[in-house]
């Protein structure tokens, strides 16, 4: 018991964590195992294309991404603060310690005054309360002015830091963060979605965040950034990591049962490491079986906004059972086959189906061939 009290109050050295040794990233909390894009499967000849977990052809082993390293921010910070991994973090620490110094000075001063007065003027035989005036305006004015000045200074420093915190540089690298009940997902510009945030070192990164259901809050203690994530609204933060490593990220706004498990890791890659990781992610993306890739793109690329898969007509025709049918289009009757779908993706206004408007945007240059094949297979399988 005494040892506990001493460690944090008196000795003042950072309390070493009880569980020594590397803290495995996916160890004790039920951190979801590092999920590569596709589940692992037994190698076998390609079966029916519509079967999502059809055995993979032998020659193409499933590409898995390198696992995330252990956390490097445990016990690395000062006594009060976790490790400061961005220059803004330095400002925050500086102001924090300044206010801490002022507070300790005031608190110790008041404590000494109270204890001393309580002892010196304690009630005892023959002790009368000596004469003293009931008010002293000069004293009152001084101890109003001085705290006001200190407060104004602290406010200004705090505000300056806050402005820096909220004005990202123009060339920041952008990642979309989607928070939903008890899971973070990070969408990178190349379409790859990951459970952990991968950022390059030394480059400003900007997060555009939104929530799918309730309020969450993106908090990385090492970068001293925190911002609530609100449904139906984009909220934005930015930071620039200074040292490579793996840092813990938390959800700070209460969001339900597994609020305390809704955390992920921020992996700061050394120079060049981030680019390599993104390329591997790109490959992993294309490595799924075509029908799963098609389904993934149907959601990720927003086809679900205009095309439904359950028969209801939305802005565009439904894909359910459409493959093989012939329909009237602006350029005569057309059988819906591979090249009609490929053409409609790349040049939507060529053959517009009757009764629908030519409002589909073109995806030329945005979808690779494997992705278009994936979509075609997916549409083919929608019976």
């Amino acid at each position, binding site marked *: *018991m005494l040892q506990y009290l001493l460690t*944090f109050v008196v000795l003042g050295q950072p309390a070493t*964590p*009880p569980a020594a040794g590397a803290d495995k990233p996916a160890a*004790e909390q039920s951190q979801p195992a590092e999920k590569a894009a596709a589940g692992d499967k037994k190698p076998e000849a390609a079966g029916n294309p519509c079967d999502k977990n059809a055995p993979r052809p032998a020659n193409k082993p499933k590409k898995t991404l390198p696992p995330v390293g252990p956390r490097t921010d*445990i*016990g690395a910070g000062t006594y009060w603060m976790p490790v400061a991994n961005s220059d803004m973090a330095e400002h925050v620490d500086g102001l*924090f310690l300044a*206010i801490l110094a*002022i507070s300790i000075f*005031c*608190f110790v001063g*008041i*404590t000494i*005054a*109270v204890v001393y*007065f*309580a002892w010196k*003027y304690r*009630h005892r035989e023959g002790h009368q*309360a000596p*004469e*003293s005036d*009931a*008010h002293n305006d000069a004293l009152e004015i001084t*101890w*109003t002015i001085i*705290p006001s000045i200190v*407060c104004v200074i*602290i*406010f200004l420093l705090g*505000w300056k*830091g*806050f402005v*820096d*915190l*909220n004005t990202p540089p123009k060339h920041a690298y952008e990642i979309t963060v989607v928070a939903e009940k008890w899971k973070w997902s990070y969408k990178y510009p190349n379409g790859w979605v990951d459970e952990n945030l991968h950022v390059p070192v030394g480059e400003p990164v900007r997060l555009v965040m939104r929530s799918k*259901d*309730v*309020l969450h809050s993106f*908090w990385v*203690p090492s970068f*001293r950034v*925190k*911002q*609530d994530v*609100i*449904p*139906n*609204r984009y*909220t934005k933060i930015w930071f620039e990591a200074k040292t490579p490593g793996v840092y*813990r990220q938390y959800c*700070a*706004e*209460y969001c*339900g*049962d597994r*609020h*305390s*498990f809704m955390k992920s890791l921020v992996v700061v890659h050394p120079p060049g490491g981030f680019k390599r990781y993104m390329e591997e992610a790109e490959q992993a993306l294309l490595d799924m079986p075509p029908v799963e890739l098609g389904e993934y793109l149907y959601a990720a690329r927003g086809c679900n906004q205009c095309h439904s898969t359950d028969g209801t007509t939305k802005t565009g025709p439904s894909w359910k059972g459409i493959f093989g049918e012939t329909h009237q289009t602006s350029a005569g009757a057309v059988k819906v086959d591979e090249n009609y779908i490929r053409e409609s993706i790349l040049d939507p206004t060529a053959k517009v189906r009757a009764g629908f408007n030519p409002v589909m945007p073109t995806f030329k240059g945005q979808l690779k061939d494997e992705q278009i094949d994936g979509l075609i297979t997916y549409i083919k399988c929608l019976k």
Partner: protein
Amino acid sequence: MATAATTIDSSGAPPEPSYLTVKRGFRNWIVTLDHKRIGVMYLIGITTSFLLGGVFALLVRTELFFPGSQIVNEAQYNQLFTLHGAIMVFLVIIPGLPAALGNFSLPIVLGAPDVAFPRLNLFSFYLWCTGAALMLLSLIVNAADTGWTFYTPYSTTTGTAVVPAVAGAFVLGFSSIFTGLNFIVTIHKFKPKGMGWFQMPLNLWGIYSTALLQVLATPVLGITLLLLLVERIGRIGIFDPALGGDPVLFQHFFWFYSHPAVYIMILPAMAVMSDLITTFSHKHIFGYRFIAYSSVGLAALSFLVWGHHMFVSGQSKLASMVFSALTFTVAIPSAIKVFNWVATLYKADITLKTPMLYALSFILLFTIGGLTGIFLGALNVDVHLHDSYFVVAHFHYVMMGSALIAFLGALHYWWPKMFGRMFNERVGQVCAVLVFIGFNTTFLPQFVMGARGMARRYFDYDPEFTRFHQVSTIGAFLMGITLVVSFGNLIYSLFRGRRAPRNPWGGTTLEWQAPSPPPLYNFYAHEQPVLYPIYDYSDLYYDEKEGGWLRRADAKPEDEAYEP
């Protein structure tokens, strides 16, 4: 309350029975219009709610002793901390000082027979009971798990019993409004002759500014919770983002009330402490006007600063800047009060009785609470510290460390007057010191833990915080046991306590001229209170036989203290 209360005065038997014994029976207590009985009923309700809330706190702390699940799973843990928060805020600490002790002391300190509207006072107590019943209903059915802040859209989509909890808080809001309204009219219209605004004890200044806050801020809580109820049941879409609503708007509505609410909690505490410190320093208060003006100033400024709860919750940069600047203006009156209290201790004649020990620990804990508020007021530091354990420690220092310790101090201060019995001084003093130690053991580590990255309302935490949680849990149990012992000491005094004199502590305010416990209309017909200059202790002397303080002016010729 079967205490045969007598007051020690010349004629032996008291001319009138005390308010406790004038009409016996449960029925008489339920329909009483007497502010003292209503105060005692509030006190019983509030102390039981406090012990219930404390049990939830200890359950939360036991759960957090090790990472991972110990005694409850995550859903139950969320229900536990929500109930701990809701019960402590709405049931204990907002009505605590104003309704329980304020109801008892206000009319006597004014020398008035009762508050302005006795039936409205009883109606407020019934509202409090209905609110408490609704909260218990939510507890029994499927306790709400939204946190005491009920943030949407979680509170409108979760499956737990949020409606009874919100309805309970809605009803408790009106109990608070009518109490505040009652007190403002009483202070305006029932001041005795010779007691102008600046001859009033500082306790009344605190109660007056609290009452202003209760009347002008609580209705916004009422409408906010009403909107939340209608949103949750009727899906009207005012806070629902899918229907065009705005969850941040709910936070504006909620915090517009809830920041004045934290001043409803602290202002009566400061008020009582001013009286306590001057009584036990046996010396006039230092800077009466500055303390009075800072009370009213705090009440006014508390309406301007609610945005500092929302720096990172989607509030715009401009609004955050404005609120941060205004938040620092609120720090100044609090600092003035603390400096004036310490100045009162200078050249005093201090007796360290139990209430004074609570008062001194109040000064120290409130100083820490106030100073840590400065950390959270600075914008970029708050971005890191918001929703972390630093905030948990800050508001526990201000709410529990200041408001609740002041409640205990005031309870010990007025206990002889309320029940005519003296509690055991030694036990009281030891409990006061142990509560101070236990409190600091519980919440000092949380400051460090919070700054290091421990988020708030977490059921499970990363292993590097284990040591801090363990120390905090030990402190929590120490404090819990000490509080139970101190309440036990008070209750024990009801049956075995020494008879209380009229003025056990040597106070100069009017309540110490009333017999303890006072009769139904506070003063005997032939003994109307005499208004002496405020906080003037020169005329008081301690009389061994009486066991309390007497005034030389009242001394009979045969007493040795008699001076022509």
